[in-house]
């Protein structure tokens, strides 16, 4: 992590001093759970790609919470591309700095999301609390681990997935939906600031009966942990999480790296890019290119999109649920 940050800083410095070197360094500001994915992807891209005048391109990574990355770019971090957890975070950069065009979402296929994921439940081996679906999370005595939607992009997907399920269960009765989602958060053992923090809390510190998390994060934890330690539970309904990507044109142009940055993101959509994506447990935009064995791991479940009328897009969802005084803020009341 530390080494990556240094690489990113060096990359930023090199990028700033421009074309003297025969190598272009791109800085990719990403969110937490994409570390392994981009490590592989960057190696593949660097190996095969040369600019028109024959320069090599290498990539520096910066990983942090999605919202924090957006703020850093707004405050001047010289990222050439952003690959974040939420559309809203890129919107914010576009809005505040003008370094990203307002219509960035239509610049690349699939709403500029080369990979998608969904939100699943991870329980302890043998599923001792018998957790099958969202309504099991509000049972008394079930302890839930999920990051704070205020500080974590992934956590917002978690919250909205529960909201989508509640919308169906309570036929759109918002009072009951709010109470239901509130009950989940009142069962929370700990609100970490990011998705990775919650994974650590659940897996290493043995806290909680169920972790609400990205599907890719759950797969990764299952692969890294001993057999039978954890189990993944697909809820009956979840959300289609679309982590988007965009070129920070203002920065990349300044570094003389606009074309390289665009090609870098386009490479995510190439067959090789899609194969790497599926290998790292993200659902590829174009399943045809991925290894069928990788695809077989993803269960087909019903997923609601953020553009569904239930949410009305990120802007509306953010304002209604997560802004100050929004529905999430109303969950926690003073004790006593």
């Amino acid at each position, binding site marked *: 992590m530390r080494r990556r940050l240094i690489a990113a800083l060096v990359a930023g410095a090199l990028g700033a001093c421009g074309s003297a070197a025969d190598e272009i360094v791109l800085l990719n500001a990403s969110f937490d759970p994409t570390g392994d994915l981009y490590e592989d992807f960057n190696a593949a891209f660097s190996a095969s790609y040369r600019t028109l005048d024959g320069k090599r391109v290498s990539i520096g990574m910066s990983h942090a919470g999605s919202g924090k990355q957006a*703020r850093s770019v707004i405050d001047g971090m010289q990222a050439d591309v952003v690959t974040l957890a939420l559309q809203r975070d890129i919107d914010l950069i576009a809005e505040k700095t003008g370094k990203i065009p307002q219509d960035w979402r239509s610049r690349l296929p699939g709403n500029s999301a080369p990979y998608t994921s969904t939100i699943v439940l991870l329980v302890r081996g043998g599923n001792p609390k018998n957790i099958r679906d969202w309504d099991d999370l509000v049972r008394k005595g079930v302890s839930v681990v999920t990051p*704070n939607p205020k500080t974590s992009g992934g956590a917002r997907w978690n919250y909205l997935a529960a909201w989508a399920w509640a919308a169906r269960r309570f036929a759109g009765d918002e009072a009951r939906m709010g109470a239901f989602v509130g009950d989940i958060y009142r069962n929370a053992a700990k*609100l970490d600031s990011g998705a990775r923090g919650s994974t*650590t809390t659940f897996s290493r*510190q043995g806290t909680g009966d169920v972790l609400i998390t990205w599907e890719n994060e759950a797969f990764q934890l299952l692969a890294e942990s001993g057999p039978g330690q954890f189990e993944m539970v697909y809820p009956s309904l979840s959300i289609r999480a679309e982590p988007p990507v965009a070129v920070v044109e203002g920065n990349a142009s300044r570094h003389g790296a606009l074309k390289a940055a665009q090609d870098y993101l386009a490479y995510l959509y190439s067959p090789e890019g899609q194969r790497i994506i599926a290998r790292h447990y993200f659902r590829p935009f174009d399943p045809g290119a991925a290894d069928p064995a990788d695809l077989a791991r993803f269960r087909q479940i019903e997923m609601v999109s953020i553009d569904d009328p239930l949410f009305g897009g990120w802007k509306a969802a953010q304002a209604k649920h*997560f802004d100050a005084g929004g529905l999430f803020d109303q969950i*926690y009341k003073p004790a006593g």
Partner: protein
Amino acid sequence: MSSEASTRTPAVKWRRRSVLPGFGLSLGYTIAYLSLVVLIPLAGLAIKSASLGWSEFWAIAFDPRVGAALQLSFGAALVAAVVNTVFGVLVAWVLVRYRFPGRRWLDAAVDLPFALPTAVAGIALATLYAPNGVFGSFLEGTLGVKVGFSALGVVFALIFVGLPFVVRTVQPVLEEIDRETEEASATLGARRWRTVTRVILPALFPAILTGFALSFARGVGEYGSVIFIANNLPFESEIAPLLIVIKLDENNYAGATAIATIMLVIAFVMLFVVNLLQAWSRKWFGHD
């Protein structure tokens, strides 16, 4: 800056010549340096929070959630500082007054909380005190006390990061105390406890207060270690610095600076009181 005052001495003699040279230069340097490092950033904070109207500012200041977070941050820092004061003085005493094998190692270990990245400390503490951690399982299983992921965890984290401040401020003073005064006190017939309370503690008191204040101030601002060991639930163990980060993530810079300003004012008042206490103690014990 200084030349003006020193060359035209006859006109207005606004200060007495010091035996040490360079007062003007060094004062100018001090003010410039403090401005650059401390005052300008803090002024920026005040200006930013002034962009909020009064009504908005008060709405944030009296938001019960903000209140709970401030109470926790200052309360936990206070408790941790008190604990650190008691045990820090004890540690300093042992390190200064006794000779035993491994003393140098222990002495060096005191500084570790200074050097360790707070996130590392936080994760280590959280792992130890989590319900299934080594200490956590014992505390919760046997004693029924929940430390990890609770407000008590916040206090534990702050004790950890604040300990060196007390030890390191008390230690040099303790080393300087003239042993002969203690011996004199003993030969004059004072019991041991009386020597401690009337001879040693008064001499140490200003240093103890400084250590207390530093430990407290550090605790109020601590973020890195706390968010790992607290469960960060509002009204339960959500500290004020976390609330500031949350406001920033809401893109609510004014709100974040408002909480920061409130913290700053409270901290300033408390540190000011400590300073007054210190001045008072010097006078009081000086005449004793």
